[in-house]
């Protein structure tokens, strides 16, 4: 062991690191992600058939999907879905909700201000900073190009 040089060591480590099961992961991501999107489509259609216009239905769908993601996380089920679905559970907006509830729940013992309310934004904070920040930049670029 102690005579291994850097390259041999790297090869040794590569051999020991478990290979992700690529194909299986991709199929599960497809199925889980597809399912969340289909649920979203069902909610959109229900809202539309109740007379909401396109924008209102889209907003209502976001609200409902966030609720579903947050509830499943609270119940401890989203963790399990995430283990199976990988990116299929992370990328839909339900995964965004999960990224908020999970750390908030975890740090509750640190109180409702610096525990729950602060830790909610561990992942959501960067998402909102870069998302809203870049949207303002795009708005300003739009003005310059007019």
């Amino acid at each position, binding site marked *: 062991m102690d005579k291994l040089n850097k390259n041999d060591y790297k090869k040794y480590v590569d051999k020991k690191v478990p290979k992700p099961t690529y194909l299986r992961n991709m199929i599960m*991501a497809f199925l889980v992600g597809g399912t969340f999107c289909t649920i979203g489509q069902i909610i959109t259609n229900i809202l539309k058939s109740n007379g909401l216009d396109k924008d209102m239905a889209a907003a209502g769908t976001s609200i409902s999907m966030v609720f579903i993601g947050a509830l499943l996380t609270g119940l401890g089920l989203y963790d399990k879905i995430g283990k199976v679905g990988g990116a299929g559970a992370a990328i839909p907006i339900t995964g965004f909700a999960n990224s908020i509830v999970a750390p908030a729940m975890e740090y509750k013992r640190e109180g409702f201000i610096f525990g729950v309310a602060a830790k909610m934004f561990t992942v959501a904070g960067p998402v909102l900073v870069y998302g809203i920040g870049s949207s303002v930049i795009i708005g300003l670029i739009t003005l310059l190009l007019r």
Partner: protein
Amino acid sequence: MEYIKAFIVGGLICIIGQIILDNTKFTPAHLLLTFLLSGVVLGALGLYQPLVDFAGAGASIPISGFGNSLAKGAIKGANEKALIGAFTGGIEATGAGVAAIILFGYTMAVIFNPKTKD
């Protein structure tokens, strides 16, 4: 047909994410940011909206759809209300989701306790 399109397009977007996840050191948090910003850029260039028109929730439920709404809202705001609109447009378009995330995120975190890992 609508549902099949949503399922397939949404699933394909998640496959792209899974490929990134398996081949890089990305965490799911990196993945969310990458897809969000891709959505913003594609949305600003007008390339994401056709996908939403085609696949509905299949393109709008992934976080890239959130990015697209931000970009679209900012452009619409800038065109309608000039400088003020450039600032408010993105948040206006995504306000429902953000408000829901804060309310439901907080409530659920307060109501439930983390499950012990099995």
